[in-house]
């Protein structure tokens, strides 16, 4: 059939073909025309064609005009002498199949609108196929989910070439349904395993896509009855318990975590960030993550900081015994700790780890001394947090108070503390004193100076909560100082003479205007 050029013409032609196909089986060959438009270059036309396909096959699925059961090949059916009706159904099923494949390909289309439309159409087919299954149920009332079709969808989503984060966020609304979640996890785990097995060098985009998809799956709480299904179904739903969902979660999680060493660093961090609250609680056997977490902890730097959280959960809830945990934690303390992004998280955990009153005094003293040493290089916003932290340590462990109060101690030539020693037990921190805090009493920022001066008096009994200080940024500090309310503004009494100041000023010595 001829059609006018341009999207408008395409639309009219498609409408005509659609009517024709739906009206009489004799006109069924128009399906080819429609599928041809689906291959078009112009995105307007493609979108029109996708819409038409959606309507066409939707109607056909509802009418049951597609072949049900194991699909024989087209040639054998055409050649065979079966009834025309069956021939037509098989033939139409083949067209449907090719249409779905094409739609899966369209998920990688350059235009987002096309991608979105293709995705929604595919999901519509998934729903319709669920209600009008194309396979014969093995027994009555069996639940059939169109797995093959769904695999096509996921395969399109988890593309190794293109970043699909936008499309995945569209897909997220389908993840509210429990069955979709279940099948997503299963299909994704399969896809991951397949891709990772196939070649060791997997592209970063693939990992990103996989991560975005898996992290979007929010798992229901234990014991909740599953009732929210995308594919409507009748019959008893007892078997559908959360336990069913667990396995795939483990699969997905493990596939990700098992591949950890291959993961790029940024993704590694991302995985670690969500480990403790998105993955660990839903695993049937969280102890399987031990290897993953401890290897991450050994890696050093920011990664170990992040692994701490998961490790903590394992130790706290699952009786993990980690030798040298505190020693490693001690090793994590280096000057960069005040400058990294995860500072608040780390100190929150460190506060937890050191909150036990059963820790030996030498250990706590070593931590306090180490932190005080590091405070000599810290910016004010971090100091405002770490100084109360140290004071809290001293409050919790009265045995460590010698660090700030040693009335009859001998005068020393040098600090007995050994900063290079890795073992806190051998660092001789208990013999030392927190002279660093004394130095910080002369810090330029008034609040820091005040915080450091606390040790001059006997420490008060109640601990200072550091929770509000954890997230303090320099900008907030700046705003606080600016908004301290109206106060008199003292003025400089030495008159200004020029930009660089007087002859003996530092700026004049080192800089010139010309």
């Amino acid at each position, binding site marked *: 059939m001829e059609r006018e050029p341009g999207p408008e013409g395409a639309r009219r032609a498609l409408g005509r073909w659609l009517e024709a196909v739906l009206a009489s089986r004799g006109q069924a060959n128009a399906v080819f025309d429609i599928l041809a438009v689906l291959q078009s270059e112009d995105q307007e036309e493609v979108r029109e064609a996708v819409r038409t396909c959606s309507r066409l096959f939707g109607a056909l699925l509802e009418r049951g005009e597609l072949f049900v059961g194991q699909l024989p090949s087209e040639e054998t059916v055409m050649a065979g002498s079966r009834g025309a009706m069956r021939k037509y159904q098989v033939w139409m099923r083949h067209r449907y199949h090719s249409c779905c494949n094409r739609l899966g390909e369209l998920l990688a289309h350059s235009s987002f609108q096309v991608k979105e439309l293709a995705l929604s159409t595919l999901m519509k087919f998934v729903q319709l196929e669920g209600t009008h299954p194309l396979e014969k149920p093995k027994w009555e009332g069996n639940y059939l989910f169109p797995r093959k079709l769904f695999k096509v969808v996921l395969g399109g989503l988890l593309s190794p070439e293109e970043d699909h984060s936008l499309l995945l966020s569209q897909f997220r609304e389908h993840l509210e349904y429990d069955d979709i979640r279940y099948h997503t996890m299963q299909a994704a785990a399969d896809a991951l395993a397949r891709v990772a097995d196939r070649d060791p060098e997997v592209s970063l985009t693939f990992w990103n896509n996989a991560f975005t998809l898996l992290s979007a799956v929010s798992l229901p709480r234990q014991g909740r009855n599953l009732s929210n299904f995308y594919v409507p179904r009748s019959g008893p739903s007892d078997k559908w318990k959360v336990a069913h969902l667990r396995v795939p979660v483990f699969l997905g999680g493990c596939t990700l975590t098992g591949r950890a060493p291959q993961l790029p660093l940024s993704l590694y961090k991302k995985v670690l960030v969500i480990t403790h609250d998105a993955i660990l609680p839903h695993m049937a056997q969280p102890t399987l993550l031990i290897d993953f977490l401890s290897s991450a902890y050994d890696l050093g730097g920011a990664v170990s900081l992040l692994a701490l959280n998961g490790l903590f959960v394992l130790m706290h809830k699952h009786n993990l015994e980690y030798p040298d945990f505190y020693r490693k934690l001690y090793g994590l303390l280096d000057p960069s700790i005040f*400058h990294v992004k995860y500072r608040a998280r780390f100190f929150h955990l460190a506060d937890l780890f050191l909150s036990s009153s059963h820790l030996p005094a030498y250990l706590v003293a070593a931590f306090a001394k180490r932190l005080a040493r590091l405070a*000599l290089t810290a910016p004010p916003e971090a100091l405002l947090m770490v100084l109360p932290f140290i004071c809290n340590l001293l409050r919790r462990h009265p045995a460590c108070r010698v660090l700030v109060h040693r009335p009859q101690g001998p005068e020393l030539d040098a600090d007995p503390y050994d900063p290079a020693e890795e073992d806190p037990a051998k660092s001789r921190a208990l013999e030392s004193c927190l002279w660093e805090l004394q130095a910080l009493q002369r810090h330029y920022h008034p609040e820091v100076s005040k915080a450091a001066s606390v040790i001059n*008096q006997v420490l008060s009994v109640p601990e200072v909560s550091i929770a509000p200080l954890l997230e303090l940024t320099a900008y907030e500090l700046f705003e606080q100082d*600016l908004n301290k309310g109206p106060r008199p*503004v003292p003025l400089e*009494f030495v008159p200004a003479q020029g930009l660089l100041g007087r002859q003996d000023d530092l700026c004049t010595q080192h800089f010139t205007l010309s």
Partner: protein
Amino acid sequence: MGKAKAAGARRKASGAPSGARRGPAKACPNPFEVKVNRQKFQILGRKTRHDVGLPGVSRARAIRKRTQTLLKEYKERDKSNVFRDKRFGEYNSNISAEEKMMKRFALEQQRHHEKKSIYNLNEDEELTHYGQSLADIEKHNDIVDSDSDVEERGTLSAELTASHFGGGSRLLHPKTFQQEGEEGEQPKSRKELIEELIAKSKQEKRERQAQREDALELTEKLDQDWKEIQTLLSHKTPKSENRDKKEKPKPDAYDMMVRELGFEMKAQPSNRMKTEEELAHEEQERLRKLEAERLRRMLGKDEDENFKKPKHMSADDLNDGFVLDKDDRRLLSYKDGKMNVEEDVQEEQRQEASGDKSEEDESEGSSGEDPEESDGPESHSDLASDVESEEENEKPEKEHQSPGKASITRGQKARNAASTELPYTFAAPESYEELRSLLSGRSMEEQLLVVERIQKCNHPSLAVGNKAKLEKLFGFLLEYVGDLATDDPPDLRVIDKLVVQLYSLCQMFPESASDSVKFVLRDAMHEMEEMIENKGRAALPGLDVLIYLKIVGLLFPTSDFWHPVVTPALVCMSQLLTKCPVLSLQDVVKGLFVCCLFLEYVSLSQRFIPELVNYILGILYMATPNKQSQGYALVHPFRARGKNSELLLVSDREDVATWQRSSLSLRWASGLRTQTATEANHIRLSCVAVGLSLLKHCVLMYSTLPSFHAITTPLRALLTEHLVDCSHPRELQELSQSILTEMENQKQLHRPLTCEKSKPVPLKLFTPRLVKVLEFGKKQGSSKEEQERKKLIHKHKREFKGAVREIRKDNQFLARMQLSEIMERDAERKRKVRQLFNSLATQEGEWKALKRKKFKK
């Protein structure tokens, strides 16, 4: 005996206190009227109030009072006559007494007039003054010689007194009497004498009058003569004019001078001129005071309670920067026998010569630039110019302050151009664009002049709205400075000069100035924060922010423990040093400038800056070849390995050899378009040199810090590495060597820390609480308000009782009066009845007697 003794004792006991109480006013009351309330026991500390009384006297007083008031009322109880005072305004308190009298007089006159005028047509009213008829006064209105008159009126003649008052005068004036006696042969009678006297005095009066008239006539004549001659005398004035002003002679120059001198402000006695030493001493004292205040703020003591204004402010102060105690006039003073003409005068004259007069001179006084006159610590003018007397750099400053003027005087052409182009008055700009359009395109000198003139034309003491205008001007100038700094190339010389203007404006309006500086800082920080949020790191901001930070250091004291502007600026600098990675040579220059600023901020307070040490460590690390180093760790924003980790390394031997130490230019911070590789290398080496010398400064400053070694350990490790690598020029090596030895030399003892002894918390005790009894008989243990309330209630009760008692007594008094009235009436009636009976009895008797008589007959 015993009874008499006791009575005597009692009287004695009573007499003493009563005497003591009443004092000398009522020395000795009648002992029979005194009633003493004897106390059974003496109680220590109790005040006895009612031990002695005079019941009879007080009762009599009360009765008297009642008879005067209550009885009167009682007697007039049924009378309805009312006395009404109809005098004008008698009960009107609004009118003053004088006015009242005037009105009354007027009313009276009116009444008088009306009544008279109806029937009496002829009689005119006679006007009087001081009781004398005005017509009379008019008759002899000629001027009376007051002097003689007073004399004669004041003292009466001797004869008069003698005759009038008699006695005694005979003794005083025997001679006159004798004379009279001889003349008149026989003594005259008193009447004759008086008549004679009167005649005599009248004659005398007449004579005196005649004399006075003569004198008047003569003076008039003389006046006329003088007027004729005067025309001849005043030959100086042209005749025509003279004729016009015949009546008003032109004032003489001399007269004018005299008048002027008379009206001119007299030289007021001023304080003694201060000697040089005294002035110097005062100056020193003032500086010492300011320094002490600065120290106090630096230590952060009484930070919160110190809310009072730093300088004294009068209640009437309009806060417009106008200072009253500033005296414009120059006091004449001598120095080495020569008149002491101040330099400003000359300068002013120079200015006048150069063409700008009017406003500059006018506002010179109020804007205040003469260093000698201001001695009060409050006046801001001496803030602007104080240190000169103490410090030697007077000369450079003079050069600083008046380069514009000097150049104008120097170049004839330039002067002409400037004087033709620049108007003398400028309206204060309302927006930044306005200011920019005023200043753009002008030379540096002209820009300065314009700003100066704006400031002077809009001095707050000149008009009301000027204060707000100048406050705005500060913000605009700040913005302008920022613009100049971001220009390419930055116009740093203009900024250098504008800083002085900013300083003086800031001194005038500290609050608004701090607000605008804060605004600028907030802007810069906000920009940086956004960048950090988006990218995780920020680029070092442009030169404008650095200049702002520098200006903050110039305008505000940087050593304060907490300062509303400086503390945020410090946080801002800390951000610059920790969040902005060093990517280029330009960034190195900027970073070093920030370091320099930071050090300058804490140069007085000697405070510790962790970021700074890190930063210098990072900078110096860039100057060494990368290798696995032991003993130090680099902190953000530096990295041990990376694209820029060898940014400052100079490997070219030749460049190292030719390098000469020089200061860094701020221009490089805004844009470093190089140049040859050699120049870049030289800049690199200069940066290293600056870093090293800053480090040395730090080391010297922090040598007293308790954990100095912990702070410097990484630096020491790096410097030893630095030294090992010998590619640096000799000078730098020497510098780092000296730093190292400086570090080594600091041997410090680590004294164990101890907390300050705090007061032990006292145990809870169970002894009863003791309350001090201050006064007996008073209710204790309640708050002040409660006591006050109780006192009031008590007072009310007492007064109430007193009032009831009074009323009761009134009633008793009235009852008594009524009773006596009734008794009186009854007695009268009885008397009358008895009288009637008497008369009736006599009548009866008579009648009976008559009857008997008749009967007898």
